[in-house]
């Protein structure tokens, strides 16, 4: 049985939970966010991704109520949230530093928000126990934050921010302080919890792998603007700009002049080299500058000349051996370096080419993406 795909953003009838409408935020003369519009839907796991200083944390702090909006509106369930102070918003936040109260036990930390709502004692207790079960922290209920490990602290912070069953949970670099192994485990845990509780999550991260793993949609930001908002596979396979292609994963970019016939484009990129054949749905004027972006894993490398729409020759400059895969840096006669990635299906001693060997690289005419800018 297949589940219907979760994609409310493609459904014109769906009403978004959060709407940014032409939001601008300035700090003095510095513009952190500029004329930004964005819809986030209920039950989404939405990732804001970008380098530090791109405005992603500012967006989150505006949602939480710690920063005012300079221009424009943010709507939650159709209501402008500007006049609502942070303590009255149905939004909770998990802080990057976790911000656990050091003078309270794990139990009291989780109960903190519930007690502010004048909830009955037994209701508080049952809710806290539920949260402890969800985050597997039952054994640590009486410990103080400094008596537990970083991973446990991260779970306490999550439990505390989920306890009030917010409509929207904001996560500010939630896994930044964890080591890689623990981070991967926790990513899956976060996804499980998000699915179990049905809460809308908005996560801020600078780690593209993390964003790709957890999110239903990713917004790539740069200098206060949204560069692209799409599902992880669209962002990876069909980036809309060189910036996005370059920010997410590894990519080869070849720039040249386009000549289009139908959906096929030939790119003249260097004197004496064969033109690159690509496919696009965009329209390029004859001679227009275009950028051909292709992922290293879509570039094949071989010792014999293969039969493919695009074949270029070069020599191996460098090999990055990662165990399961190797990335070959191949220098073309023009000096351009193309990265090609292959799975190490054979023992390394049986590799048919090594440093300085002449090789052929090849790719199909649909493997890459043609970008205007």
């Amino acid at each position, binding site marked *: 049985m297949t589940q219907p795909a979760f994609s409310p953003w493609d459904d014109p009838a769906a009403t978004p939970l959060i709407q940014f409408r032409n939001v601008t935020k300035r700090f003095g003369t510095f513009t952190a966010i500029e004329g930004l519009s964005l819809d986030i839907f209920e039950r989404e796991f939405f990732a804001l991704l970008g380098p530090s200083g791109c405005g992603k944390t500012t967006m989150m702090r505006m949602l*939480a*109520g*710690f920063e005012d909006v300079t221009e424009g509106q943010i709507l939650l369930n159709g209501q402008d949230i500007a006049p609502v*102070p*942070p*303590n*009255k918003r149905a*939004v*909770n*936040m998990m*802080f*990057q*530093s976790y*911000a656990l*109260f*050091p*003078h309270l036990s794990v139990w009291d930390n989780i109960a*903190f*928000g519930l007690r*502010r*709502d004048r909830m009955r004692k037994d209701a508080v207790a049952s809710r806290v126990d539920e949260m402890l079960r969800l985050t597997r922290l039952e054994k640590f209920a009486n410990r103080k*934050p*400094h*008596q537990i*490990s*970083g*991973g446990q*602290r991260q779970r306490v912070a999550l439990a*505390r*921010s989920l306890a*009030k069953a917010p409509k929207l949970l904001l996560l500010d670099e939630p896994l930044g*302080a964890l080591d890689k192994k623990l981070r991967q485990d926790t990513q899956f845990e976060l996804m499980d919890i998000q699915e179990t509780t049905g809460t809308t999550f908005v996560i801020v991260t600078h780690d593209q792998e993390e964003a790709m793993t957890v999110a239903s949609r990713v917004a790539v930001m740069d200098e206060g603007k949204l560069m692209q908002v799409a599902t992880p596979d669209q962002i990876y396979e069909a980036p809309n700009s060189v910036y996005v292609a370059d920010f997410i994963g590894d990519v080869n970019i070849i720039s040249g002049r386009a000549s289009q016939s139908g959906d096929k484009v030939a790119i003249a990129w260097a004197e004496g080299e064969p033109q690159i054949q690509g496919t696009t749905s965009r329209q390029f004027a004859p001679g227009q500058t275009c950028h051909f972006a292709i992922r290293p894993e879509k570039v094949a490398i071989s010792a014999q000349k293969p039969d493919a729409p695009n074949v270029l020759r070069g020599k191996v400059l460098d090999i990055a051996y990662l165990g399961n895969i190797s990335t070959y840096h191949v220098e073309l006669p023009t000096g351009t370096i193309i990265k090609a990635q292959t799975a190490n299906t054979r023992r390394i001693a049986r590799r048919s080419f090594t440093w300085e060997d002449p090789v052929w690289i090849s790719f199909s005419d649909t493997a890459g993406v043609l970008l205007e800018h």
Partner: protein
Amino acid sequence: MKRFSWFNATSLTFGFAFLYLPMIILIIYSFNSSKLVTVWAGFSTRWYGELMQNEDMLDAAWATLKVAVFSSTLATILGTMAAYVLVRAGRFAGRTLFSGMIYAPLVMPEVITGLSLLLLFIGIGLDRGILTIVLAHTTFAMCYVSVVVSSRLTSFDRSLEEAALDLGCSPFEAFRLVTLPIIAPAVISGWLLAFTLSLDDLVIASFTTGPSATTLPIKIFSAVRLGVSPEINALSSIMIGLVTLGVISASLISKRAAVARAKDEQAAAGA
């Protein structure tokens, strides 16, 4: 390297002798059984006993204690509030001026503080007595409290307060339930410092007191002018004890809190 050389030992002895010999002599003579201060006639606690019979002295002690408790409490409240505003409120017009002004009394000669307060109290027609001493002590102790508390607040993680707001606290609740318990050691050591300062202040108290109120330092000072009595030695010894206790507990409390904080931070970093 030899750590304990004769030179070091001598320097240490002289340094500490210079600082503490007078007090040690005073304490020793407070146990002298002779009425003549300078002649040793054997050990006795007689003067401590007589001190307890001296109504004047006891009244003065009681007044001093009252002044110290009220003024240090007031100074702690005001000093903490001032520190909170200075550290938290961000930039506002005249902030630099305000923060400079709050620390100025630290270096202001006591005579000037005392005189100006006296003029103020006369100007507004306030009868001089316990109340005016309390107000005066609050004024000068408050800046010490705010120095201690603001140094703690600058290292305080702002996101803790934001988390409290996020979880539904009003700004006042966030302060009461999160900020205050965490900075409590600094607030308490500020209080102890203010208490100690008030306990041994002579200059400002003499300026602002009236006929109805006499604090111990004033009492001692005026008694000594008529000649040193062993009773005064006993009283002074008790005061030395109290002040020492106050200062030591203040530094112990802030040191213990600092150690606990360092441990927490280490645990957090190592996790």
